[in-house]
């Protein structure tokens, strides 16, 4: 159900832009108005979500400790998986965000007769996830060449590295193939693994289809249904410099691609894609395990009803005296 629904939505999105541009000729709407709205929604939504999360305090120090604690000089602490300092936390977060450290631990359990359990090597999800995210980032950086003049060095660098294979003309980008392959993998495992299928929601399929359509349209445009890149750059620069113009004669493929990007941007803050921001705020990862060393204050701490020693002694005094236990009041 989720699959069909999500596919339909993506198909409808493509139909809308196709009709809008090709039939109705709403170039300005799809070239200027929607992109501005989308970026506004993205930035506003993203900031709002982060602020909203940050507004809730972190009352307790609850890191998941994934290695040896800091104790004695003669016991080696695992400073990255169980950090006790800020530097350690930065290291842990860097591993988490850049290399998906936690996902790298993944294994797969297998139940055999007996019952007997075995734990299998399973790094495919980690590998696909990592390649997908890095590909997406590099593709994003590459695209900055449309929005900048002169194009910054790091954008050129991303472009050069990505096109290092230099196969054919125009040169093939590694990330184009990778993103298609990894998104396809991420989709297939959702359908093929029974547990994955069972837990998947439309909100899990939709972004995959959207990104698949997005990448496909981009690849089609680059290698097969060419559009005038100079005009695309003119449009992009217009948007970036707040003097928007829509040059005539850009192919409809571009508008499909562009509209799907806009959809992704606008959808982002309201979806699970916000894990991009959330991972940085996750208290089980971004806190040092130092709560026995440094006092952490809970901002909403309040006094609670306790059973005091006096009440306890009042209740048990006679029995305590009889048993020879010291008491405060004889």
């Amino acid at each position, binding site marked *: 159900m989720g699959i069909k629904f999500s596919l339909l939505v993506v198909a409808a999105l493509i139909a809308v832009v196709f009709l809008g541009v090709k039939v109705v000729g709403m170039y300005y709407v799809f070239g200027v108005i929607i992109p501005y709205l989308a970026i506004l929604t993205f930035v506003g939504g993203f900031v709002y979500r982060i602020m909203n999360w940050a507004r809730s305090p972190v009352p307790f120090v609850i890191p998941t400790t994934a290695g040896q604690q800091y104790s004695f000089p003669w016991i080696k602490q695992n400073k990255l998986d169980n950090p006790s300092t800020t530097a350690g936390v930065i290291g842990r977060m860097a591993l988490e965000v850049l290399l998906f450290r936690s996902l790298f631990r993944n294994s797969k359990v297998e139940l055999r007769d007996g019952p007997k359990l075995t734990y299998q090597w399973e790094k495919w999800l980690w590998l696909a996830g990592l390649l997908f995210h890095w590909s997406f980032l590099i593709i994003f950086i590459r695209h900055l060449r449309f929005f900048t003049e002169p194009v910054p060095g790091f954008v050129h660098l991303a472009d050069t590295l990505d096109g290092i294979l230099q196969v054919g003309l125009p040169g093939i980008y590694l990330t184009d193939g990778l993103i298609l392959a990894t998104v396809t993998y991420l989709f297939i495992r959702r359908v093929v693994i029974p547990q994955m299928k069972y*837990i998947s929601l439309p909100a899990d399929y939709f972004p995959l289809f959207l990104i698949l359509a997005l990448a496909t349209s981009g690849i089609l445009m680059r290698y097969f249904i060419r559009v005038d890149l100079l005009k695309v750059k003119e449009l992009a620069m217009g948007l970036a410099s707040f003097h928007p113009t829509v040059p005539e004669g850009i192919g409809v493929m571009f508008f499909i691609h562009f509209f799907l990007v806009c959809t992704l941007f606008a959808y982002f803050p309201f979806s699970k894609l916000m894990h991009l921001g959330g991972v940085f705020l996750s208290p089980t990862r971004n806190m040092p395990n130092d709560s026995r060393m440094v006092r952490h204050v809970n901002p909403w701490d309040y006094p609670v009803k306790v059973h005091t020693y006096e009440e306890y002694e009042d209740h048990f005094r006679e029995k305590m005296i009889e048993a020879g236990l010291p008491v405060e009041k004889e």
Partner: protein
Amino acid sequence: MATVPKPNELVIDHKPPQTGWMDTPVVFRPGTWCYGAKTKNLKALDLPNPREWSPGDEDWKLPENWKEIILEGIRERLEKYRSFKIFMDICVRCGACADKCHFWIGTGDPKNMPVLRAELLRSVYRNDFTTAGKLLGKMAGARELTMDVFKEWFYYFFQCTECRRCSLFCPYGIDTAEITLMARELLNLVGCNIDWIAGPAANCFNNGNHLGIQPHAFKDMIEFFVDEIEAVNGVRVEPTFNRKGAEVLFITPSGDVFADPGTYTLMGYLMLFHEIGLDYTWSTYASEGGNFGFFTSHEMMKRLNAKMYAEAKRLGVKWILGGECGHMWRVINQYMDTMNGPADFLEVPVSPITGTRFDNARATKMTHIVEFTADLIKHGKLKLDPSRNDHHRVTYHDSCNTARGMGLMEEPRYVLKNVCNNFFEMPAGTTREQTFCCGSGSGLNTDEFMEIRMRGGLPRANAVQYVHDKHDVNMMACICAIDRAVLTASMNYWVPGVGITGVHELVGNALVMEGETERTTDLRGEPLAGMEESEDEDL
């Protein structure tokens, strides 16, 4: 009480059902749920809606506005806990956690996959607190809070042991323990705790410990073990109680006072403290290390934990030493100072024997007994004869909370390797931070829940089976009172022939004490290796 199927009769099917999870209602089959909290226990703790009820009943006797109370409870917790808010929002359902839960592995019930356990609550969160959920309903994974949903919460959030194994594998660190904590707080808002938690918490609040042992009885029980020790090696140890001016206050879970095999661990403590001449006292008021409040709510955790510092202050001790216990140490490590500190009336713990300053406890002023003992051994302050544990072939079970809520991993291994000659690790992926829960943690160690406990205990037991087959392991050491109680049952069920011991029981066995007579038995009265014959001769 339901009978538990034999190990070979247990059906475990990992295939999810045909119906979607929102359309698969929960069935309260005997053996798979815990009894509801009794009126007197809820009253003793001033918890809402005390009444006679059973989760097996159709009518749970909730207040009329229960739904409002729960939704308001969610709203309040979203404001108070960033963890809760973020964990409600950022799960991508990648499924990395799915097969990491011992309850899922042992039951195959998809709602025991951590991701789906969280979705049980998330679906309601989406429905009432997110725009997408309000607009798109089921399409956005949202559903209304109904009585069936609420019952499902009770069933599955008391089928999670808050062991945090899933959180280790989650790319965003989503911690199901945190979600379960919140869900249990919500359930408690309308009086839906389980009695195995509410009872011990009530006991602890009024009597000082979960088992409700009164002061005179507490003293009696410990003195009983003084006699037991004397019977083993002729040394008479002299514990003191509620003594002002002692240097150290010692607090351990009351389970160690009450039941085998924890009691042997307690004997180990007594012997160790006597041998090194530690100036310490027990407390009958703060006679509980564990914290069943932790399984109820943050507030209840604070209420029960408060006794530790209060008693340390009253007695005027310098610092606190804590016994072998799992959840107790998560509370001490991650919550105690924030909740009931600052402990500015105490001093940074310094071992009076070695002079080691326990820098890692400089704020809480509370040191773990295994840290304390490891330091003693490192400095050569203990005379140990590990051969006295030669009748044991030992493996070590990391408790969830000391592993994933603290990181106490090398210290117990160091102690074990010094007190016994035969030590074997279980396979990688089942120990240290990846350790498997005993299957009965977080207050679920009750008899009526036995089938699920045994199912949840399977992954741990299976790893034990491996070392049992390969290395003849016949004893598993652990540093948690719940472990000691429940792993015994789990081993009898899955791996007969493997016993459970605390680390300090083995220390007690190996400890060469001044003035002791020759030992022929261990603390359990079982003959030492090579002494079997002399035992026979006595007969």
